[in-house]
């Protein structure tokens, strides 16, 4: 018997992702991930000054404002072959990594944990045993009996007040919830602590970027933070010392709390290390540039074919032709049409002409385009980045993977091999590794900035000059959800074309020209669904990718029915 389930929307954050699956004999047999909002944000920057694009494009998504802003200036700088002063690279790197850490923490604790943690069960926990368990696995200061007891009291009051419904998509009491009441209580305590810590990251981005959630300090050619060792109102040593304090706090939480919690989820849900594998070809980019030209990086990236690490080919510089020559987008199953008809288009020649039909299972069914790398779908995201790190022999990446396995060994006989990262829980493991790496990069860039200022270099900006004629540029970034690229064509100093190929496009894409599925669909196939009315298993896998379609697609014109009565004034 076949049961069709439609989940819409899936996301706990902005965006309209819809998942249609057919369940046969208790397992998912067919899957259609789709975006139900129109994409086309890029059109808004056409014919504008390329120096202004980033201020507009950071509005693509409310979560990744700085991410899109920096990617946009990188695209214009690549077109101009404009070098970026070291101080500006370091400041941007600090904003990117601080943001990434916040994004990873929020993804795990606020957006995904409730798929694994039964909040109501925590009421039944013995706080003393919860504290004992937590303290035996980590010396995190937030694991004491007082914390556990207090968390439970607060939870009681909260549930008693009938407000639990504000947590969207919580499947309390589901048969697939497997943590003990004590571990559930510990997780709820950490959920609250994560809220405290993530704002350390927000504070760093805010201090450097002048404002959150929309940063103000970028410029094509650098950043607009004047650096001074004495004066107020600019980036002073005092402000940098405050940033260092935030960095240290974040480090303590990442290593002693987040890291341990991911190990616990992996230890108690080991079957999810073998489920939810997405596309087995991986694409990431080198990032965290530490020279002015974008040729030397802290974070390695590249392409891995068929999950075989020996096939790793690095993407070794910004604007690498191996990268730019490989990316194209198909609209065979997306609600767009290309002038030339069938086939794929590289982003620099990309078109965004809507062609809406109904939702057609075998025809067009999504507003998301289908990107490919040399004709094939690729999985982007923390898994791709960590695998690239392992393949490139990056010492830091390998060491964090080893440390995660060390933590796991105290809890279970399971081991996370690199190949197991391509799984539902593996994606959380890869993400905590990336969070820790981002912390290392953040700390290192802080030091590099201090040292460079110490040498007397205060430069933060190179003036961009726009020649007559046409030029193309790409901005690459290893964003929290994976590879992001902005593609710009500039003609006589104005934007002639602009396309953003975002991580969720790679992952949530419909089928491509060759009928190949992207990662969301691949990952869902074969997933058991115990209760079609409460498809928790499907959500676990989709949430592990951190779906955010805000930037992949946009705009809904659906009038949703509502029970609340409102009166016009």
């Amino acid at each position, binding site marked *: 018997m076949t049961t069709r389930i439609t989940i819409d*929307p899936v*996301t*706990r*954050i*902005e965006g309209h992702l819809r998942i249609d699956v057919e369940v046969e004999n208790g397992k998912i047999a067919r899957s259609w991930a789709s975006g139900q*909002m129109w994409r086309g*944000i890029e059109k*808004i920057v056409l014919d504008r000054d390329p120096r202004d694009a980033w201020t*507009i494009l950071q*509005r*693509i998504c*409310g*979560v990744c404002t700085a991410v899109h802003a920096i990617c946009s200036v990188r695209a214009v700088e690549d077109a101009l072959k404009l070098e970026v002063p070291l101080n500006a690279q370091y400041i941007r790197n600090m904003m990117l990594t601080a943001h990434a850490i*916040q994004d990873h923490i*929020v993804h795990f604790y*606020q*957006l995904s944990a409730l798929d694994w943690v039964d909040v109501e069960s925590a009421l039944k926990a013995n706080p003393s045993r919860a504290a004992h368990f937590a303290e035996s696995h980590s010396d995190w*200061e*937030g694991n004491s009996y*007082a*914390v556990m007891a*207090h*968390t439970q009291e*607060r939870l009681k*009051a*909260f549930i008693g007040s009938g*407000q639990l419904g*504000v*947590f*969207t998509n919580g499947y309390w009491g589901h048969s697939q919830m497997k943590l003990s009441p004590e571990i559930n209580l510990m997780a709820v*305590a950490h959920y*609250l*602590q994560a*809220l*405290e*810590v*993530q*704002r*350390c990251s*927000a*504070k760093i981005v805010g201090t450097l970027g002048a404002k*959150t*959630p929309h940063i103000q300090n970028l410029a094509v050619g650098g950043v607009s933070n004047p650096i001074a060792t004495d004066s107020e109102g600019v980036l002073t040593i005092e402000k940098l010392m405050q940033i260092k*304090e*935030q960095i240290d*706090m974040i480090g303590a939480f990442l290593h002693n709390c987040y890291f341990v919690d991911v190990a616990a989820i992996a230890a108690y849900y080991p079957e999810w290390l073998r489920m939810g594998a997405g596309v087995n070809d991986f694409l990431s980019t080198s990032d965290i540039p530490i020279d002015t030209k974008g040729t030397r990086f802290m974070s390695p990236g590249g392409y891995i074919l068929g999950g075989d690490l020996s096939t790793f080919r690095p993407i070794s510089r910004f604007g690498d032709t191996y990268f730019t020559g490989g990316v194209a987008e198909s609209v065979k199953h997306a609600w767009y049409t290309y002038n030339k008809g069938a086939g794929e288009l590289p982003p620099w020649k990309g078109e965004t002409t809507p062609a809406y039909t109904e939702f057609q299972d075998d025809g067009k069914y999504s507003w998301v385009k289908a990107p490919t790398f040399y004709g094939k779908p690729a999985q982007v995201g923390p898994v791709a980045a960590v695998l690239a790190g392992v393949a490139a022999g990056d010492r830091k990446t390998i060491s964090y993977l080893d440390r995660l396995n060390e933590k796991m060994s105290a809890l279970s006989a399971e081991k996370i091999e690199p190949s197991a990262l391509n799984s539902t829980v593996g994606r959380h493991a890869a993400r905590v590794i990336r969070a820790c790496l981002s912390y290392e990069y953040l700390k290192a860039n802080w030091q590099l900035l201090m040292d460079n200022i110490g040498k007397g270099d205060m430069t933060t900006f190179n003036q961009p000059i726009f020649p007559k004629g046409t030029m193309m540029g790409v901005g690459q970034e290893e964003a929290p959800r994976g590879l992001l690229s902005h593609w710009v064509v500039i003609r006589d100093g104005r934007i002639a074309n602009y396309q953003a190929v975002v991580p969720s496009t790679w992952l949530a894409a419909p089928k491509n020209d060759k009928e190949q599925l992207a990662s969301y669909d691949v990952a869902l196939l074969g997933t058991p669904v115990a209760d079609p009315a409460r498809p928790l298993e499907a959500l676990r896998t989709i949430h592990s990718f951190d779906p955010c379609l*805000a930037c992949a697609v*946009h*705009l*809904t*014109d659906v*009038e*949703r029915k*509502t*029970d*609340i009565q*409102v*009166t*016009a*004034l």
Partner: protein
Amino acid sequence: MTGESSGEIPLLSFVKDSVHGPVLEEELPERTVVLGIGNVLLSDEGVGVHAIKALAQRYEETKQVEIVDGGTAGMELLPLLEGAHHLIVVDAIRCGQPPASIVRLEGEQVPAYFKTKLSPHQVGLSDVLAALAFKGTIPGQVVLIGVQPVKLSLGMDLSPEVNARLEEVVSMVQAELAKLQCRPAISQNLR
């Protein structure tokens, strides 16, 4: 619920002290946040942001009143809203009213509104409010000024119909602030 310190989880004292510095209770002003949300790239979807920008041109922010351009942010809003006594949200809202209608929701109506998904970015704000409720630091009073959009197509300008009512929206926010006895300082631009 706001301002209660007894309900706070007794941990991560280091975070509190260093981020905020030790604050004496009598120094805490009643804080009101005026939050404009929406996507300014989708014409009327961004009416909330347009409204608070108009408001910010007239007033300087003070310790009592913060004017926040929330865009379509999610958890990033948490530190900005945390511990606020009053929250005034301005947003585009699709509520089945005639185009360019203005509605005002308050108290119990607001969480009810956020649970239904009338606009794409509410999922984010509802999660922020849920987290704040859980922590016990949700603003005591939440008022929402909503505008039924006319046009949601790509574009950075409001529709003429909504634009014509923008002044009214701003006045309504000012009236809310007056009710709360908090008057932000007049902007230097206008002095």
